[in-house]
């Protein structure tokens, strides 16, 4: 067990190191990316430029700069932005995390519930018009780009029909902290949640349906039916549990990626100041410290989620447990 944990930790460190070196080198290889003149300001005198270069360590060799940046990011946590002098990136990320967590969690609840319902009903009514309709609806959801759907949702709820009884409750775009107003938090997030969930509902429902159909022919399902269990019980207790393996592993990856800033487009469209929007901002400003911090943050979540999914497997599939 300890060996496995150490192995996992080693993998995490290796992945993080690789990503950080890559991001760092790509930044310095980008033409015009030298941040000195941007930090010093337009028309700054050569003396000021030299001072800034020295203060930020841009006159040092790249490996030294890289090491200093990593130290500031992980140890002293006082890494400051290149675009916003004085902005410390680690506290910024920590402040942005609850927004992303709220968005991803709410969206996940909707897509998990809806996709399990859709996938199970479609499998139960396999080959009928219900199955075909549900899967077609899911496909439409998958095909709609989230930024387009978000803009349309905004157009309807914020612009065209905002003053009608239907959407007059919709608040201005942006985030309301839960602690400030739970109702405001819910109102501000309900449309982003639904928008974010649409794509995933389609994907997950189709995956679940296909797994349910596949397992229905397995021996243990036949045994369950032979024991005289009702078709519903067979489907939900025996079939669904086993079919949830792919579902859960997919969910682990997707959820971790969203927490790590993957809901970037949704955050940008709805003006939510989460990790994704911070990443977007960092990329548009070519702000290396912020890019580095958000990429590292995202990578940590993806690696951790992988580990967590492995653990959940054990609970879901007795065969994995027996194989220990």
């Amino acid at each position, binding site marked *: 067990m300890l060996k496995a944990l150490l192995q996992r930790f080693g993998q995490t460190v290796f992945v993080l190191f690789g990503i950080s070196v890559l991001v760092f080198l790509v930044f310095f290889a980008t*033409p*015009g*990316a*030298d941040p*000195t*003149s*941007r930090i*010093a*300001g*337009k*028309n*700054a*005198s*050569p*003396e*000021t*430029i030299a*001072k*800034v270069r020295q*203060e930020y360590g841009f006159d040092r060799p790249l490996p030294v700069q890289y090491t200093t940046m990593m130290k500031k990011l992980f140890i002293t946590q006082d890494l*400051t*932005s290149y*675009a*916003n*002098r*004085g*902005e*410390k990136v680690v506290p*910024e990320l920590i*402040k*942005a995390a609850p927004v992303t967590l709220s968005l991803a969690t709410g969206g996940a609840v909707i897509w998990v519930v809806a996709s399990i319902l859709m996938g199970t009903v479609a499998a139960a009514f396999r080959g009928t018009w219900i199955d075909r309709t549900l899967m077609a609806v899911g496909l439409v959801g998958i095909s709609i780009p989230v930024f387009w759907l978000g803009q349309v949702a*905004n157009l309807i709820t*914020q*612009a065209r029909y*905002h*003053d009608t009884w239907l959407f007059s409750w919709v*608040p*201005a*775009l*942006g*985030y309301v902290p839960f602690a400030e107003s739970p109702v405001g938090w819910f109102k501000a997030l309900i449309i982003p949640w639904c928008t974010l969930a649409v794509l995933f509902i389609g994907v997950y429902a189709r995956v679940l349906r296909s797994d349910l159909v596949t397992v229905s022919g397995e021996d243990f399902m036949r045994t369950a039916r032979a024991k005289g269990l009702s078709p519903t019980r067979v489907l939900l207790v025996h079939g669904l549990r086993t079919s949830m393996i792919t579902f859960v592993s997919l969910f682990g990856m997707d959820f971790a990626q969203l927490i790590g800033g993957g809901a970037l487009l949704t955050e*940008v469209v709805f*003006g*939510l*100041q989460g990790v994704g*929007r*911070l990443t977007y*901002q960092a990329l*548009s*400003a*070519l702000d290396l410290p912020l890019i580095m911090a958000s990429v590292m943050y995202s990578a940590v979540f993806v690696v951790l989620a992988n580990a967590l999914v492995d653990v959940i497997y054990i609970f879901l599939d007795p065969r994995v447990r027996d194989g220990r």
Partner: protein
Amino acid sequence: MFSVLALWLALAGSPLHATIVAPGAPDSPETGGILRITAENSGGTLDPQISYVHITYQMEAIVYDGLTTFAKTPSKLSSHAIPDLAEALPEPQDGGRTYVFHLRHGIHFSNGKEVTPDDVVASMQRIFKVNSPTAGPYYSHIVGGEACLKDTEHCTLKGGVEADDRAWTVTFHLTHPDAEFFDRLAFQHASILPADTPAHDTGNEAPLGTGPYRIVSYEPNSGLKMERNPYFRQWDAVAQPAGYPDEIHYSFGLDPEAAVTAIENNQYDWMLESVPLDRQAEVGARFSDRVKLIEQLVIYYAALNVNLPPFNDLRVRQALNYALNRKAVVIYNGGPAVSTAACQMLPTGAPGYEPGCAYTKGASPEHPAPEWKEPDLALAKKLVEESGTKGQKVVIVTPGSGGSGAIANEIRATLVDLGYVASVRPITPVIEFSYIQNSDNKVQIGLTGWSADYPSASSFLRTLFSCATFIPHSSNSINASQFCDPKLDALMDRAAEVSLTDQKAGDALWAEASRALMAQAPALPLDQTRRVALTSTRVHGEYDTPIYEAVFSQMKLRRAGDAP
């Protein structure tokens, strides 16, 4: 008891607001409320001596004061500096090298401490200690300034800035006369801060100021809040008028499209960005009473690198200036209501600006037309033919967003018409300016815009086209055209010198310098634009000034029930 008092007040006809007005607030029925502003992104550091972006300049105008300032009362007042913390603009002594400022008495920082001459001296030193972007170009001619630039930590400005606590004065000694000295002191980097303000970038913590508002919280990723400075008492209604709203809340995160919708819905009162082009027709048709066109001292242009072929040939630079259809540029930037074709590098409204277009049909540098009319393709083709540069490759570097791409393509098409093999290279807007001002990047044409820190001809002509601002092998060579003409430099020096004593004659010389520059055509002036501002139904009254565009303290808010 309360109802009896209220009844008595009503019967007496006494205005209720008079009893609740906050300290330092105007005694007016329009006082109070929370002004809600939105912007796509925050502006980074709040340190007024370092921050160098429009958003902070505008916010901090009502938080900080300098010895001088620009008018903050909405009107078409002069755009020259006026006294602020100083009682009056001092008469120049010693041939314009010495200025004695009398400080006003009884002005307090937002912690209650009185502003003293020592605070002024410390603030001037701090400009150098914190590596302020303008320490070199704007303040290094204060005696001791050059030494401070080299050794920022031990900056004293000895012999340059002297405080006299008994006379309550601060004396400045300059190494040479400077016609723009009052303007430079009015720029936010010369804000007066308490002497004990840390000598480093204060980042997200705003230092104490003297204006009607103080910044109480700031999250660069979400928002900023300002409230009244309890120690503010109006000392000059033009320099720093008392503010109407009780609080100002700035939210960051909405893109301009979403911000327009939010203001239409009255969820916000004002947005930093101009209304995007695709929404201008909509807001103009539906909310014309809430739209204001604000004049800006900005010029959009393409820098032509005079050291690289084909633009090292004057005929080619002139040809491109003759051939470009500026009508198309105006359309790409929002049409004639918003954009005006530009023919010179001084925008309308800048000191020294005189109408005149050297490059349009029927005109020449010697005989300019009053304004741009239409391109002269035939003359342009003739000039290119004479230069013998036809068929050469030209790459246009442009910011990859907004109307710039379309304008770059218009220039590309013009170059193709003239016989060149032209292409466009879009670069992310945030680094495009750094890219084209890097003199090693060998940019032939770079599209950009320039907005002056304060209104002066020199901030356009000298900053962008003097020999001093072209620095070979530098990443910070603001003169992207790499233009250097000692004769023009001499003319600009003379214009600055004459402006010291005779503003009108000085302005005439700046106009001459502008014409002389365009005769050399080191740039392709494109257009000058107005800002399209949209407000909620709550905002009323005048709030725009030539320098700050919007002065938030002057935005009056209607309350629920007030007639629009």
